[in-house]
């Protein structure tokens, strides 16, 4: 894809013997929302951090706005970071409690030398209004705000440098449902207004279905299925995706739940990663890892039985 904002290929990360992420690839177009779904240990959060080079990949290529991030000098990477920002799950831990809201929101602009102090202050007011916080909030501290409001502050901070990509790692998981809806709506509004692309990481299948255009399903560090959201939700092709969707609340359960636990990433099964829990596993799955194959345009599945 030539108009891809982010193009990731063969991305891998090992921490000693633990293969947290293996051979992950996907592309995100401008203004698109791409979701990564998975359970604990699937590598979804590590993938998010790798994309921003907050964690150095062991292998793989990350092309952002046409440039290979790995080849950029430290200074060039720092400059490029202006165009990609991150929102974390925990709005309590991710904001420095000793800084006022104004300082917090202005900080990324200072780092990237955007405007002078007067302009930055004006811009903070604009950003507060955009995320639905009162002007008076600027002189207060994070602890004076609720979880939902803090997540709004984190969003304002992420928007300060006018990024083209925001990586959101479980941005609403710590919030109560009534507040969760406020933050999701805000993200959608902002995305529409600014043409932002979102890399949206979540374990909540309902939220992912609501937010995303395309999704990747991860299991034990690999992408087992990737494609248009509507297609995957309507007709999941990988046995793990199917089981995952059937386990989600509010969706009709057809088969029995998956047996067994998620294996440890330090002790991966041979062959297909899902083989030890797969209801359809056969001989071949125990010794040969299936390669991702296209089952429809831009819909890839890593399963020996993908075509059936």
């Amino acid at each position, binding site marked *: 894809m030539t108009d891809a904002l982010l193009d990731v290929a063969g991305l891998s990360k090992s921490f000693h013997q633990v293969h947290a992420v293996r051979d992950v690839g996907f592309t995100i177009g401008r203004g698109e929302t791409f979701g990564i779904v998975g*359970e*604990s240990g699937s590598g979804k959060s590590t993938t998010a951090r790798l994309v921003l080079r907050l964690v150095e990949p062991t292998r793989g290529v990350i092309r952002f706005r046409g440039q290979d991030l790995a080849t950029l000098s430290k200074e060039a990477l720092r400059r490029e970071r202006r165009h990609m920002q991150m929102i974390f799950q925990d709005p309590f831990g991710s904001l420095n409690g000793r800084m006022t809201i104004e300082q917090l929101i202005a900080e990324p602009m200072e780092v990237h030398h955007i405007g002078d102090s007067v302009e930055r202050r004006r811009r903070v007011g604009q950003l507060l209004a955009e995320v639905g916080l009162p002007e008076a909030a600027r002189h207060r501290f994070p602890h004076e705000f*609720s979880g*939902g*409001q803090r997540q709004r502050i984190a969003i304002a901070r992420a928007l300060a440098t006018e990024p083209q990509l925001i990586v959101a790692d479980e941005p609403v998981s710590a919030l*109560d*449902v*009534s*507040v*969760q*809806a*406020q933050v*999701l*709506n805000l993200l*959608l*509004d902002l995305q529409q207004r600014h043409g932002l692309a979102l890399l949206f990481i979540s*374990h909540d*299948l*309902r*939220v992912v*279905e*609501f*937010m995303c255009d395309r999704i990747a399903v991860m299991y034990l560090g690999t992408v087992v299925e990737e494609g248009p*959201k*509507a297609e995957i*939700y309507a007709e999941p092709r990988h046995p793990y995706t199917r*089981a*995952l969707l*059937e*386990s*989600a*609340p*509010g*969706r009709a*359960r057809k088969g*029995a*739940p*998956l*047996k067994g*636990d*998620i294996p440890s990433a330090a002790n991966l099964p041979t062959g297909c990663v899902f083989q030890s*829990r797969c209801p359809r596993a056969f001989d071949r799955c125990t010794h040969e890892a299936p390669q991702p194959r296209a089952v429809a345009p831009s819909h890839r599945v890593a399963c020996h039985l993908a075509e059936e």
Partner: protein
Amino acid sequence: MTDQAPILEVRDLSVSLPISGRMVPVVTDLSMSISPGEAVALVGESGCGKSMTARAIIGLPPPGAVVSGSIRLEGRELTTLSPRERRRVGGRGIGFIFQEPMTSLHPTLSIGQQMTDALRYNLNLPTRVARDRARELLARVGLPKERDLLNAYVHELSGGMRQRVMIAMAISCNPKLVIADEPTTALDVTIQAQVLELLIAMRAEIGLAMLYISHDLEVVAEFCDRAIVMYAGDQVEAGTPVECLKMPHHPYTRGLVDAIPHAGEARARLSPIPGQVPSLGSWPRGCRFQPRCPRQDDRCATRPELATVVRSEVRCWHPLVGEVS
């Protein structure tokens, strides 16, 4: 509800906690009853008082809490018992499953030790018999027989296995009632499905009554007979979970239903509830949902009583009667 005498009957339960030097209400006048074999859900967001209700029922409220009202287990009033008698009655009659098995199971006692202690204390079983029974229970909750789990420690088990051990312990003394406080919230979805299926099977097998605490109306709709929705310490609506999802009457319940993205729904906007849950100690007078409610008017300054609306019990002056589209 069936005509059988209820297993659990709670009348006008109120709980207050000491917070910065004054007593702050956390649960107000809650009443409910659970019949044999029935599963009742307590649903609400954080701070609504659902866990505090459970802790009051099992007789383990936080230090300094003041609990009033009546709690009867199989007709026997629990609130007037001495702590010793209460442990005796509660230990045998009620099983609990907590959200985080890692913190509710003992880290340095083997699984076998913890299980046999409870069996010996509550049922006066000799050690050897208690051990056999513990082994049997672990097999019953679907833990692998090959592994000698009686000699294992909590940290050696996965989250799903820990929760199975918790369930085995909860049913070990043949309780009539099991109270489960968000038992699947800390688990991954595929493991969550396994644990839910186990709980449902246990219920059918031994006719357990269950009080199931959750923040998710859609989860409880899968297996609970009734749901009680709580907001700021108040019971605002009670009905079947399906009714609560399809035809919520209280504006708060409606707000909760509209705030969840539903299957097949995408990219339109959700309808969030404006504002936020009031913090403890600053609940509004009258109807507690009133400042966030689209149907609020002068009448809401007076606290509404629970009243029947269609097939549910609702605490609202202006209940909704339409179906969710």
